[in-house]
């Protein structure tokens, strides 16, 4: 059981100017399940590998508990890692795969046997212990990779997109299994994924990265309800939030004929620091209603309707500021429009997110 602390940890690859991970400050509590999420190339895997000791740390430090592990080799860190492609040793049986690390530590045979059998029982792998990885299905291989980490009883679990090679159904299943397992074992876990649904459903807290810079770290609910900047707002949530930069008046943000009212401080903050009379406003697809033509909604021409069974996503374009902007609205199936219809969209005024037009920070 341990905490993990990144303190200004930086990684710069030779021959590149921009750091892959830029002064990352992050504290992960004992027993916490923290998810690192972001688009590809954002530095999430690099951050994880820095913690694993597979990647050098160029500046700053990393601590496990109060121990500085910045320059320790992987084997001195007492961590276990689950790789994206599982990295099972192909010439060893499932049992040998799981026992490998323990053997290297000269754990007594009886102890190894006990731990491997325990982990196998936990993961329903008992009948496969004598098999080689190539005789297992994808899901079973994934479980072996998990088992290999569990038997170590490490201070920290590191998982690098462990579900990305599974099919959709199995992924959802395994997602809950991993979360349950982690809660049961109570081992601090750092989990990397590019899938925001995984991040939101599994993590106690979620850290969003972009271009090597930590954007925001918070609980999934906070992240969803109060995104710290435009990037987080657009990244978290599916379909993505409608984010538009529009002119700003004293009353609020101007959406064509419609005005989204803003507070006095928000208007003031938006005008400071080169706001230039503009403001970025976002509202989630589910936070708006389809209203009648006369009720002051924004006219949107429907281009695509996704019927999800429970509800429907309506995609379309609206004329805004002389350009044409894309909008997504989630609506009840019963009021689902047809393609080519014009609908009138009215955001709920208490559910919008306002950001500074230039800096992208939340107001």
């Amino acid at each position, binding site marked *: 059981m341990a905490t993990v602390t990144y303190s200004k940890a930086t990684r710069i690859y030779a021959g590149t100017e921009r750091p892959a991970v830029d002064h990352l400050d992050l504290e992960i509590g004992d027993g916490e399940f923290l998810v690192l999420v972001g688009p590809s190339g954002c530095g999430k895997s690099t951050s994880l590998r820095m913690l694993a000791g597979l990647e050098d740390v160029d500046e700053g430090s990393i601590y496990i508990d109060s121990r500085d592990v910045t320059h320790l080799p992987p084997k001195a860190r007492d961590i276990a890692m689950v790789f994206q*492609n599982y*990295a099972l040793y192909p010439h060893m049986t499932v049992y040998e795969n799981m026992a490998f690390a323990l053997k290297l530590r000269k754990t007594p045979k009886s102890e190894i046997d006990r731990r491997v059998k325990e982990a196998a029982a936990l993961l329903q792998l008992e009948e496969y212990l004598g098999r080689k990885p190539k*005789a297992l299905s994808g899901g079973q291989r994934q479980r072996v990779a998990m088992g290999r980490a569990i038997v170590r009883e490490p201070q920290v679990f590191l998982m690098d997109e462990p579900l990305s090679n599974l099919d959709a159904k199995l992924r959802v299943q395994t997602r809950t299994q991993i979360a349950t397992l982690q809660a049961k074992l109570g081992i601090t876990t750092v989990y990397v994924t590019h899938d925001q649904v995984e991040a939101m459903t599994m993590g106690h807290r979620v850290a969003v990265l972009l271009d090597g810079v930590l954007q925001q770290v918070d609980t999934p609910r906070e992240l969803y309800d109060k995104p710290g900047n435009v990037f987080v707002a657009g990244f978290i949530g599916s379909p993505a939030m409608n984010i538009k930069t529009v002119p700003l008046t004293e009353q609020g943000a101007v959406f064509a004929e419609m005005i989204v009212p803003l507070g006095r401080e928000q208007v003031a903050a938006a005008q400071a620091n080169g706001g230039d009379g503009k403001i970025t406003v976002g509202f989630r697809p589910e936070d708006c209603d389809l209203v009648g033509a006369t009720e002051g909604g924004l006219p949107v021409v429907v281009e695509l309707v996704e019927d999800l069974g429970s509800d429907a996503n309506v995609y379309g374009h609206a004329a805004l500021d002389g350009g044409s902007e894309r909008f997504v609205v989630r609506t009840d199936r019963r009021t689902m429009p047809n393609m080519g219809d014009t609908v009138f969209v009215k955001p709920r005024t208490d559910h919008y997110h306002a950001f500074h037009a230039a800096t992208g920070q939340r107001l």
Partner: protein
Amino acid sequence: MSTTTPVLPGVTSEKLPGTAAGRVRKRLNTRAATVVSIIIAVLWTIPTFGLFVSSLRPEQDIKTTGWWTFFSSPAFTLENYNDVLFGRSASSGQLANYFVNSVVITIPSVLFPIAFAAMAAYALSWIKFRGRDWIYVGIFALQIVPLQMALVPLLSFFSRGVTLAGITLMPAWNLDDEQKFIQVWFAHTCFALPFAVFLLHNFVSQLPGELMEAARVDGASHAKIFRTIVLPLITPALASLTIFQFLWVWNDLLVALIFAGGGDETAPLTVRLAELAGTRGNEWQRLTSGAFVAIVIPLLVFLSLQRYFVRGLLTGSVKG
């Protein structure tokens, strides 16, 4: 194609009908192709078969009629083999002794380069150090040096050592009699290393990096990773390299003649066979059995290792 490995979901079969490789494979699977390959195989084998039949015929028959007459008037004897292996007369070959020499030369000359090359291949692929790529390019480039160019320098290295500006960097080896085996082992190892490193490096560097990282996280040192992960996974490459190197050393005449000399303490079979052919030209019934004695070991090596050629050990380690 018959295969016993289960087809895994998600792993695409290599037999895609649309690809060029798929088309070639399809064509090679036709009956006509099979017939042609059988004919080629038979034609190729006939001379060796004839040699084998001859080696079992009495001296008089060999010298007067062709080997195919064996089938119309069979006469069978092991006299030739007895003669070349254990005969006491000067002209009889005494191959048993040279056979042992060949074994003594070949086994270390195969094991040394392959062991060194495997370690070098691992280091050049997976240990990060300055100048790694240049060292690899240098080793790779050494392949263009013809073996014959190195004979004289190497011989002088053994007999005179290395001196630079009057300072002896390395004394002469002064090896005599049986010690000359060391020279042959050394020479064969030198000549084999560049290609062996190149071949194994290709193989080792293709292993998935995640495996090495997983092993490092599991707590394995480089030596441990090499022994427990890399070596088992490159067994097919090691086996094919072993076969090539074995055949090369076993059949080698030049290097052995120069570094082991022609004396009966160190000279291998090939040297002796060449002598038999050269100086005992009129008793060539012994050559037939002598050739077969020389073939036996390579055949055994090939048959025992060939299954590694066709076996891919990597299936299932990582998905992709």
